[in-house]
């Protein structure tokens, strides 16, 4: 394991070369720094020394026997010889044993061509086999889960996968059972290996034992065109390598030590299963391939975008700029969102621009921490966030920090999550009482008395004080929170809390907002907000705005996404562009949203997959989307990276081109871009904080954009707790990673992970309602009723009904009327 800080170094000699490395480095890694490759199987730099495969034998002067270089911490003046006759012979012997029962099926093995066993055998193994007896035959191609297949014959029992499950995933779901010859990798009672991160074992397996079921026999690895790119699901923006063969998608791998240099600043070389097996959207039958009008007639992209721009301009001219609006999405790239806001602000003169249904203003009152800062913090304070379901690889980073860097984790949430396990302190407030809880924490930090919290939030004041004391006692505090899970008032209170923590004496404090979507941070930065220009420029900064965007820039606050829906219903908003969003399903309101959109004079939907919203559109613009389009995204840590295309589509322009042509059709003077980087360059010129972002800096590890302060934080105080109706429970909508939506459709390899609609109830409420686990219930609010199966658990405090969004079909958001106000539901048998 790499240490937090490295100061002391040692100098030694490896094969005659002088090496200086930090103390504690193992010989394998030390050798790597001078280009000497000591072969390994069981050793993996993210898993630490183990020494079970014996492949890395080297000769060390003054040591009587060969030593394993992967467990040998180098010492001062050590002399290591990797190529001596003794070492070479030793390794050859080890390989002979390793290959004893390994089948010779390289020609049909998926790993062939990228197999460390194959490579090491060529480089270090014996020329001929001396084996004259029958090999031990074991089970071949056994499903370990629907997406991972194990070939027991090929396994060399290096234990990388089982140690990964123990050390990284920390679930110990995979173990070695039996002993010696009978040793085998297994889950408990051979149940499916279904974790959030199971696919990583395919990458780290040094032989062809663990293979990606979706890629089995699909291609030889030397036929693949590999694109180092980014995952397009959550906000972590993990680095992935997408392999395509003849422009057909084949597989996703983590960008890791196995194929390239892992980006430790983002993902540490791991990806989640949604990132690995959820790439099927690039070849979904549901893709929108052509632009079309409301009669369903296909249109040339240029005609369609021209029509859209002209029509929007016409409506804006006729009914005023307030009559047109843009609802974007956190799934767009920086370039796409930047260009869209430019189109609406400069050409259509409106600030009706938004991408979300929760409240969040750009900027933070403290530093915007990068993901790597978690490891160097003393305390991680996790608020209202469920990383396991919302940003999975962040879950791994937090667990790693707690286990290996002595970082303390404190959790403040209204639901039980997987993060409670590594947490030193875990507080659960009542659903809906986040503002009261955060206010109480602020009071406790200011050494004020905390009163009445037990009643309003279900947390004993003693615990809040304990949490406050923990924060006060930690030097570096990293606050991770989900802005989308905080109700309206709390979205201000959280900033007030950050300011309070940052203002404590001798304190470093930073925050990582983890909102849903790939590029929620970038969307805010790019000004997809009714009250802020790009770079967090508030409308009040008129001078700055005018100098950057021209004298005619609109300075009237625009409508938020939800307001736009309201105004559409009222007939005030006439035209709307919806970009890569599906308000009909994802916005609160259910059928009311659909009615509002139908009420529009002109609805343009720019999306890559057919949705309930595209069905209502007057004009559909086809979007190639991730996989086909280049662009940059900003991850939860503010790091801007390049999402390269992995597949090519020549018959349809990329989104940035569609949007820039819309701009040019209204303003022929506007710049035209040759590629996405031309737009990136414009961003670096016009978006404060993005000055250093350019074609070069977004590659490799990427570069954090400069964070910016938010406009003044105003504490609104906690709202008075509302009284529930008789027997009503407060609804909390939570997230589930493998939700069955348009991205993970029925044909997805992850379909086995889909869940049915479930409502979690506290035992107290369930008893009062006479509901038991497994009982079929209806969750009712007004005239909307959602079917669900009840689960009685301690996942939330009494008085709440917790429902994960498990599918589009579930229609859960129809229950919610106003996300800022409480949603009360009746759970009926």
């Amino acid at each position: 394991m790499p240490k937090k800080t490295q100061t002391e170094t040692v100098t030694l000699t490896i094969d005659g070369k002088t090496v200086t490395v930090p103390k504690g480095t193992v010989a394998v890694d030390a050798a790597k720094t001078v280009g000497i490759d000591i072969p390994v199987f069981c050793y993996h730099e993210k898993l630490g020394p183990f020494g079970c495969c014996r492949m890395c034998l080297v000769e060390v002067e003054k040591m009587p026997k060969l030593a394993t270089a992967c467990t040998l911490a180098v010492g001062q003046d050590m002399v290591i010889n990797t190529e001596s006759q003794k070492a070479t012979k030793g390794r050859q012997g080890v390989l002979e044993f390793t290959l004893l029962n390994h089948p010779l099926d390289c020609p049909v093995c998926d790993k062939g061509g990228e197999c460390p066993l194959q490579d090491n055998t060529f480089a270090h193994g014996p020329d001929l086999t001396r084996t004259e007896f029958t090999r031990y035959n074991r089970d071949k191609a056994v499903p370990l889960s629907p997406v991972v297949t194990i070939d027991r014959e090929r396994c060399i029992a290096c234990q990388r996968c089982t140690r990964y499950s123990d050390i990284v995933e920390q679930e110990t779901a995979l173990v070695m059972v039996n002993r010696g010859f009978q040793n085998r990798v297994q889950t408990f009672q051979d149940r499916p290996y279904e974790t959030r991160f199971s696919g990583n074992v395919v990458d780290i397996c040094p032989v062809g034992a663990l293979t990606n079921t979706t890629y089995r026999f699909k291609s030889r690895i030397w036929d693949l065109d590999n694109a180092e790119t980014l995952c397009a699901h959550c906000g972590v923006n993990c680095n992935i390598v997408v392999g395509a063969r003849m422009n057909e998608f084949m597989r996703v791998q983590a960008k890791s030590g196995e194929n390239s240099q892992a980006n430790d600043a983002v993902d540490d070389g791991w990806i989640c299963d949604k990132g690995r097996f959820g790439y099927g959207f690039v070849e979904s039958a549901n893709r929108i391939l052509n632009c079309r009008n409301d009669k369903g007639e296909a249109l040339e992209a240029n005609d369609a975008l021209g029509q859209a721009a002209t029509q929007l301009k016409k409506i804006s001219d006729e009914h005023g700029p307030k009559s047109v609006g843009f609802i974007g999405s956190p799934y767009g790239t920086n370039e796409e969102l930047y260009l869209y806001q430019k189109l609406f602000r400069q050409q259509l003169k409106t600030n009706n621009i938004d991408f979300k249904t929760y409240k969040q203003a750009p900027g933070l009152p403290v530093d915007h921490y990068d993901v790597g800062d978690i490891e160097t913090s003393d305390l991680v304070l996790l608020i209202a966030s469920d990383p396991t379901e919302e940003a999975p690889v962040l879950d791994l980073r937090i667990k790693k920090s707690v286990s290996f860097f002595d970082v303390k984790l404190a959790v403040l949430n209204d639901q039980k999550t997987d993060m409670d396990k590594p947490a030193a302190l875990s507080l659960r407030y009542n659903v809906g009482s986040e503002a009261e809880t955060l206010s109480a924490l602020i009071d406790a930090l200011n050494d004020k008395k905390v009163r009445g919290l037990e009643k309003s939030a279900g947390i004993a004041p003693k615990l809040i004080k304990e949490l406050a004391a923990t924060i006060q006692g930690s030097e570096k505090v990293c606050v991770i929170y989900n802005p989308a899970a905080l109700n309206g008032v709390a979205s201000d209170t959280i900033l007030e809390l950050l300011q309070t923590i940052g203002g404590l004496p001798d304190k470093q404090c930073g925050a990582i907002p983890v909102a849903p979507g790939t590029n929620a941070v970038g969307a805010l930065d790019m000004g997809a907000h009714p009250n802020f220009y790009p770079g967090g420029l508030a409308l009040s900064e008129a001078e700055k705005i005018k100098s950057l965007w021209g004298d005619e820039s609109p300075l009237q606050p625009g409508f938020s996404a939800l307001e736009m829906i309201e105004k559409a219903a009222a007939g005030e908003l006439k035209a709307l562009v919806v970009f890569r969003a599906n308000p009909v399903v994802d916005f609160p309101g259910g059928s009311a949203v659909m009615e509002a959109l139908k009420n529009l004079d002109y609805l343009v939907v720019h999306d890559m997959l057919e949705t309930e919203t595209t069905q209502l559109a007057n004009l559909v613009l086809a979007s190639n989307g991730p996989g086909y389009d280049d662009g940059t995204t900003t991850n939860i840590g503010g790091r801007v990276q390049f999402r390269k295309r992995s597949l090519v589509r020549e018959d349809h322009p990329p989104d940035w081109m569609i949007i820039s042509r819309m701009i040019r059709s209204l303003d022929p003077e506007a710049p035209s871009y040759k590629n996405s980087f031309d737009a990136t360059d414009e961003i670096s010129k016009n978006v404060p904080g993005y000055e250093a972002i350019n074609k070069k800096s977004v590659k490799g590890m990427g570069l954090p954009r400069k964070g910016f302060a938010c406009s003044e934080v105003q504490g609104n105080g906690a709202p008075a707790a509302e009284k529930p109706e008789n027997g009503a429970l407060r609804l909390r909508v939570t997230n589930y990673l493998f939700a069955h939506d348009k991205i993970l459709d029925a044909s997805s390899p992850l379909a086995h992970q889909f869940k049915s609609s479930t409502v979690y109830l506290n035992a107290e409420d369930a008893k009062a309602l006479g509901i038991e686990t497994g009982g079929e219930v209806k969750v009712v609010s007004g005239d909307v009723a959602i079917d669900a199966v009840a689960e009685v658990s301690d996942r939330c405090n009494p008085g709440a009904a917790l429902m994960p969004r498990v599918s589009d079909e579930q229609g859960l958001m129809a229950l919610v009327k106003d996300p800022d106000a409480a949603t009360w539901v009746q759970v009926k048998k």
Partner: protein
Amino acid sequence: MFAFSETSEKEIEKQLVKYPPDRKKSAILALLRIAQQQNGYVSPEAMEEIGRRLDLSPAYVEGVCSFYTMYYTRPVGQYVILFCINVSCHLLNCDNLLEYTAKKLNIEVGGTTEDKKFTLLREECLAECSRAPVMRINNDYHVNLTPQKIDQILDSLK
């Protein structure tokens, strides 16, 4: 469903105090033994229960349990015969003796007699090479085996 009996619970309590609370997983061998003592073997449900007690995944418990041949993961007879098949015993013809025993009990090696009295298993070294061939029946060693001796021993247990 598996549940520890009152006697077992008392025994577990005694074992757990031997380890610091943050290292309680070290009690896994003891708990496996207690579970086996109670039910004759360690069932998957028992492994899950032990995992819950010690904050371990059931897979980890199974890994440990399957490593040791003296934990049984399937139901066994009243008497478990562990027949050493390692070098010294092998040289002294344990194979024939094992076959002889199996035939006598009318079961395959690894099987249990219909009356649930005997289970016959192969075992790697029993660490009694000086008196090979050796078998162990429950907690007793039987050494310098011959067919006659085996007859005698098995008859005495019937």
